[in-house]
């Protein structure tokens, strides 16, 4: 009964499009999962070309990863910059001050490619393992 009501709560809170599968709304993925995936997702958000912080947050939200805070994204980008995976450059802003543009370096691009492949294997392994008995694909 309480379980049903909490599911109904979720449905009430989320978009009509989310209502059909009654799962967690996108903004409520467990933070542990997000922490693990956010690094690669941030690099992916730069794969189409240089971008800036707020646009990346928008892109990640559109991809269904929920609303990432600036306090989470920028330290991550700083670490990637230190590791040589991304480069930064100040460009003109829209009327405001400047904008800091982030872009993938060659090392970042190959890191993203490799890790995306590994992530897919990891996700498949977890999914297979978690599948209820008898539904496992041969």
């Amino acid at each position, binding site marked *: 009964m309480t379980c049903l009501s909490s599911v109904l709560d979720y449905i009430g809170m989320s978009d009509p499009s989310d209502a059909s599968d009654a799962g967690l709304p996108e903004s409520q993925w467990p933070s542990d999962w997000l922490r693990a995936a956010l690094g690669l997702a941030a690099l992916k958000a730069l794969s189409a070309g240089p971008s*800036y*912080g707020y646009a990346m947050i928008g892109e990640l939200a559109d991809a269904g990863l929920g609303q990432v*805070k*600036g*306090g989470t994204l920028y330290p991550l980008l*700083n670490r990637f910059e230190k590791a040589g995976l991304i480069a930064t450059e100040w460009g003109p802003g829209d009327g405001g*001050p*400047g904008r800091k543009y982030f872009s993938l370096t060659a090392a970042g691009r190959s890191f993203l490619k490799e890790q995306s492949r590994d992530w897919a294997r990891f996700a498949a392994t977890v999914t297979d393992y978690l599948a209820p008995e008898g539904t496992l694909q041969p």
Partner: protein
Amino acid sequence: MTHVGHAHHRRWTEEFSHELRLRQVSGEDINEAISTVDEHLNDSGESASDAFGNPRDYAASLGLSPTDDGPARGQVLVAAFVATLSFLAFGLAVSRWISGEGSSTVIICTLGAGAIMLSASALLTLGIAKQIVEATVRERFTGVSAGAWSRYAPAAIAVPWVFPIFAAVIVAVGVLRA
């Protein structure tokens, strides 16, 4: 756009840059971090603490490295070298003066070397004191141990004055013997 100039924003930014300064992050990196915060808040319309949380925690999470203190350490070494040389020069010149060789060259050498020795000792003390303070602050805010600096701080600050004290002893002994 309304947040910039707002008291809350100003206080947040002050605390943020203060924390970065204590972590000895370079001025350039501090300015860049603040510009990035401003840019983000202009875009999102959020308040600084909503977007970035506690300014101290955010400063720590950026992982910006402290400025290289190589130049400061170099200045200490140069001051120590100059103090040693001028001490030797003063010793030679003053012993000649005391033994009766009162030519103007000897007098000028004595006074010049003495003045250089005193200035170098003072600079050396300042340099060493600065290193000690920075090591202590670094220990407090980044957990990197101040190590030998904190244990031998009083001795380290006193060391440069060995030169003028020895010089004074040389003068005193020479005058008494003459």
